[in-house]
């Protein structure tokens, strides 16, 4: 019976998670609190939030587990900087400053700032945290586990075997050969921001064809044992973590794309970049499928759990699921570094003798929305408020009338997806809705797709497939049925795929009701569901965040639980 706090920090998206007596109580990314996208700072505010949500005093915490070992990481960083001597002279002071200046003191920082005794703070390892977050949240009793990311302490890819309460390391591929860093380097080459633009590359890839396979065969070599080797002359992540690729890559693939230049996929220039993205995506999918097969083969399991930043590649996940069977693949929804906080908390909990958690059913692990506060502040801002007797009915009427509605309900989501707790909902039928959302509200590239949410028991009528272990979390894609594309224009990507979320009464009662009402009105049990945030902002968490978003964007209605806020009278 233990109270365990898991922490991930310092590289990408930091987070805190709380497990009590083996149950996942709360898990929050720091960005949701600090309002800084991909905030990697030590998540003190997130940690305090999960503790105060559970009404736990810091002194009652039995164990704090940090998701990686900073000393092992320091060793890898130093060795690799010296290995690339003298090219890494500019990176050296920065790396030393961040490693020795803050990262190795993480036990002291957590102890001092959370007011928890230092001896209660421990480390686990980066890939073990990822693996634990995937396996112990899955419904599988036993499973192979595949972790693929940029890099942890040293590993970039690892295979594990989970059985009951146990998680056993099998094998790994060490830095610098990394699928995550390959994808990140090409992300930078295509003019997107590393750690923030990878999913844009995935969306872009559908607009191109894999015409650069010969060139990519020079960049990455796949061995017969499914391991891979990067040709390091094309990369610069030892010496420049922001760019990640070297001049040789430009010689091979042509000039890099200018950052921030508006996209025009009708131009020859941008078509070339789309082809490069498509090639990268195909190569990544091919490697991941091979790695998945290897993990299953050497563990003898028929189930697979995946985590690590690369497991957020929903298109690849869909293809792996096709290969191994849709109900044999589970992806932890916060598969990136934030997920490490959850994994490390579970590891600590099991080490202290608690049972593993029950399988993750939904992602509402954040803080609840304070409806009274929203109502009061909305009134102070001159907005009009109205109590709804049937919110699901009102939302369905607005969707039928092609209105875009902001919708907030319960605790905010864990992970990068909006799953109906902090969402923008709209009619999925009209292409204009997609353009309106992309151009005026989300202000993002016009090639980016939107996702639908559907009643699970209607899924096979509109999509090629049934609900599976990933669809409740939007961790995979399905093809829209050919005869339904016309009806689902706003949520069908150019390659006819869709990152569909399935809902039933068990994982979201209110969203389930909304979809039933929409079905009655429009004949479609489907709604467009996108995250409630503006460009480069974290998804809305609190009452203030919701009102800030609502006032800044051309949306007329926001429904918070049973309160309708509108701009009438402003």
């Amino acid at each position, binding site marked *: 019976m233990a109270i365990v706090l898991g922490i991930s920090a310092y590289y990408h998206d930091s987070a805190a998670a709380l497990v009590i007596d083996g149950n996942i109580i709360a898990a929050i990314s720091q960005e949701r609190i*600090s*309002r*800084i*996208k991909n905030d990697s700072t030590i998540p003190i505010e997130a940690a305090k939030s999960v503790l105060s949500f559970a009404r736990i005093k810091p002194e009652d915490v039995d164990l704090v587990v940090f998701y990686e070992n900073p000393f092992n990481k320091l060793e890898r960083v130093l*060795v*690799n*900087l*010296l*290995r690339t*001597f*003298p090219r*890494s*002279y500019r990176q*050296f*002071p920065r790396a*030393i*400053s961040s490693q020795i200046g803050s990262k190795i003191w993480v036990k002291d920082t957590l102890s001092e700032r959370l007011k928890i005794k230092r001896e209660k703070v421990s480390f686990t390892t980066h890939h073990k945290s990822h693996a634990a977050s995937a396996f112990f949240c899955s419904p599988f009793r036993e499973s192979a586990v595949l972790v693929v990311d940029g890099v942890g302490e040293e590993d970039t890819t690892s295979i594990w*075997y989970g059985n009951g309460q146990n998680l*056993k*390391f*099998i*094998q*790994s*591929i*060490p*830095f*610098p*050969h990394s699928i995550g860093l390959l994808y990140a380097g090409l992300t930078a080459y295509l003019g997107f921001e590393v750690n923030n633009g990878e999913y844009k590359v995935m969306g872009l890839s559908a607009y191109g064809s894999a015409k650069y396979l010969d060139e990519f065969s020079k960049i990455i070599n796949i*061995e017969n*044992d499914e*391991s891979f*080797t990067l040709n390091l002359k094309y990369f610069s992540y030892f010496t420049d973590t922001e760019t990640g690729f070297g001049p040789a890559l430009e010689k091979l693939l042509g000039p890099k794309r*200018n*950052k*921030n*230049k*508006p996209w025009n996929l009708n131009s020859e220039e941008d078509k070339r970049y789309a082809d490069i993205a498509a090639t990268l995506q195909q190569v990544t999918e091919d490697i991941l499928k091979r790695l998945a097969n290897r993990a299953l083969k*050497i*563990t*003898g399991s028929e189930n697979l759990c995946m985590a690590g930043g690369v497991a957020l590649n929903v298109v690849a996940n869909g293809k792996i699921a096709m290969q191994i069977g849709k109900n044999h693949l589970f992806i932890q929804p916060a598969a990136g570094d934030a997920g490490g906080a959850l994994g490390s908390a579970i590891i600590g909990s099991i080490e202290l003798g608690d049972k593993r958690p029950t399988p993750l059913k939904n992602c509402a692990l954040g803080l609840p929305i304070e409806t009274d*506060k929203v109502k*009061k*502040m909305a009134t*102070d*801002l001159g907005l009009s408020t109205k109590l709804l007797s049937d919110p699901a009915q009102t939302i369905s009427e607005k969707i039928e009338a092609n209105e875009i509605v902001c919708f907030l309900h319960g605790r905010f989501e864990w992970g990068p997806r909006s799953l109906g707790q902090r969402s923008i909902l709209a009619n999925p039928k009209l292409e204009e809705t997609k353009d309106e959302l992309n151009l005026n509200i989300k*202000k993002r590239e016009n090639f980016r797709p939107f996702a639908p949410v559907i009643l699970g028991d209607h899924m096979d009528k509109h999509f090629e497939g049934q609900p599976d272990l990933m669809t409740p979390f939007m961790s995979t894609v399905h093809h829209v049925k050919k005869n339904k594309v016309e009806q689902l224009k706003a949520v069908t990507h150019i390659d006819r795929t869709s990152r569909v979320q399935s809902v039933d009464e068990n994982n979201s009662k209110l969203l389930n009701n909304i979809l039933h009402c929409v079905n009655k009105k429009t004949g479609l049990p489907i709604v467009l569901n996108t995250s409630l945030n503006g*460009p*480069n902002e974290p998804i809305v968490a*609190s009452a*203030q*965040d919701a*009102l*800030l978003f609502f*006032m*800044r964007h051309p949306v007329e209605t926001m429904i918070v639980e049973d309160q309708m806020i509108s701009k009438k009278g402003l």
Partner: protein
Amino acid sequence: MLKILFVKFINFWVWRNPKSMAGKLYKFSLAEYGSMLDLMLASHSTLSGERSSMYLRHALDEARHSDLFRDHINYLADKYPEVKYQPEVNADIDNLFLRMPETDFLAFAYRGEKRARIQFAVYRDYFKKKKLKKEYELFAQLVHDEFEHERYIWNLLQELTGSKKSALVKTWKMAVWELGRTSLRRGRKLSNFVFTLTTIILYFISMPIALSIILFKRSKTGWHRETKI
């Protein structure tokens, strides 16, 4: 007064071409976005529901200002190829509200708004003279908003400190605090420079270790540390 003269004096240099103009506007956009984050934190953290709404309204203005600056950069990018588009702005938060009492935070914000209003008024007049209508309108709008912020914060500060005199004392104290902060920032810049120089020297002294790593500790490829189930 000296500040106004200085800002007027360097106007020609700050706004010398579209690229330099975009650079300056980007800094303003960042500053406004950072203020927005700090005010959102204030709105979350204050114990008064009334002030929470006030800070939220202020945060909305700061977000709008950040957008106005960014939109103007993109307007320049449409006209001049040398100006880069700026679709997003990322700023850091100072967490000021958590680091000081609310009245100190207000005194700090008051000084910031006043400073911005004076500086933006110089720019507004400059663009009026130059007959650059869009830029003039941008800064005229900002001067108006900064004045409103200055006024409400001053009223609030007087209310919370109990008198005009106490409010004034708070602003003086914050002036001293800001001076200290500026000195610390300069000190940090200097220590960063010394640190960078020292570590680069250390890096080159480590050459024999680096060479031995290059020769004897090759990077690994393939699968490693295999364990049987």
